[in-house]
């Protein structure tokens, strides 16, 4: 990942987000195939929602894309740049044992933002995500929704071209879900490619541009959202949308 901070400029907003290409990717663990082989390209504007039952390989797909894991076989490539700026928000936000603002300043320091700019940028991000009042609260005593917003604020500071979200709302109440979804839309409007996993059909309907449907470690469908919800092709997707219990 590049490690310098680029302010959000008009040119950055207008440039289309990089495309993500999986070429025959598989991931094995101890001779067991957990994902793949799968090939697809994420293009268009998205947001891409990765759906499927538990254990389908959704999180794995995100971790492979974000280079937290390396594929056993196959290639994962980006269009244009070798490795665009990216960030990830986890299901359980990982926050440092310090104040909310210190968490943001740390992320900026790691990305070599000059010291004098850090505090202002961090406070701006807190304000944008409605956390100004919690500025000096230890991050780990914030509520679940606030923690997730802080994680989003941290991702925001990295100006990612791609943002991965791994079930960011699965442990939150409706108000917090609304705030997180608003933040995701804001990222999307800024031209960030969104790749998000969820198993909530309603959330997918609210957010999705296209759907990547996984089950049993294989990509069963990759279609625009309206097609997916109206006329799913694969048997698994039909069952999933109908509310049956898919394995």
């Amino acid at each position, binding site marked *: *990942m*590049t*490690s310098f901070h680029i302010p959000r400029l008009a040119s950055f907003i207008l440039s289309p987000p990089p495309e993500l290409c999986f070429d025959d990717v598989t991931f094995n663990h101890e001779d067991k195939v957990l994902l793949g082989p799968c090939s697809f390209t994420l293009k268009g504007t998205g947001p891409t929602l990765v759906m499927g039952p538990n254990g389908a390989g959704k999180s794995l797909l995100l*971790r492979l894309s*974000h*280079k*937290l894991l390396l594929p056993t076989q196959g290639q994962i490539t980006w269009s244009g740049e070798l490795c665009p700026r990216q*960030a*990830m928000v*986890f299901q359980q936000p*990982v926050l*440092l*044992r*310090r104040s909310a603002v210190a968490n943001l300043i*740390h*992320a900026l320091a*790691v*990305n070599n933002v000059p010291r004098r700019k850090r505090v202002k940028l961090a406070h701006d991000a807190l304000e944008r995500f409605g956390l100004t009042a919690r500025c000096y609260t*230890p*991050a*780990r*005593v914030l509520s679940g929704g606030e923690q997730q917003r802080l994680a989003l604020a941290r991702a925001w500071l*990295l100006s990612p071209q791609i943002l991965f979200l791994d079930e960011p709302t699965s442990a939150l109440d409706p108000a917090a879900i609304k705030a997180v979804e608003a933040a995701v839309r804001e990222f999307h409007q800024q031209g960030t490619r969104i790749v998000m996993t969820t198993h909530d059909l309603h959330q997918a309907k609210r957010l999705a541009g296209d759907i990547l449907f996984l089950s049993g470690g294989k990509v069963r469908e990759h279609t625009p959202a309206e097609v997916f919800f109206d006329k799913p092709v694969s048997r698994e997707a039909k069952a999933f949308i109908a509310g049956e219990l898919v394995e």
Partner: protein
Amino acid sequence: MGLPPVVAGLMVYLLLSRAGPLGEWGLLFTPGAMILAQVVLVLPILAALSRQKVEELLGEYREQFVSLGMSSSRMMPTLLWDARFALLTVLLAGFGRASAEVGAVMMVGGNIEGVTRVMTTSIVLETGKGNLPLALGLGIVLLTLVMLINAGAYLVGELTRRRVG
């Protein structure tokens, strides 16, 4: 993790004795020798406990760190700072271990009154002489000190859990 204290004492004794490799330093039967023996005894405990604490934290933080593009050398200061309270309790555990030490410090210190006689070695000596009231009194003082340190370690842990989560 735990070195038998008398074996550590014997090793330091052999190292520091006149005929030993470090005999020229003239440290045997001085407080310096006792400090050296304590370091040999406590350092492995501190290292093992610290490693365990930092490793636990890394397990929790690793994915986020990699996601932020941090190198291993950049992770280290962050981990040490975030483990600061856990490391403080480790330090207190080490101090508790050292303050209870008898065998090694007796061997390399020589239990010389006014120079290398500490509370634990005094208790051994006074008990041997049959001066039980003094031995008991010293025992109570030592016990109180160790209990205070343990209480401190516990409080630090509790406070952190509440404040920093």
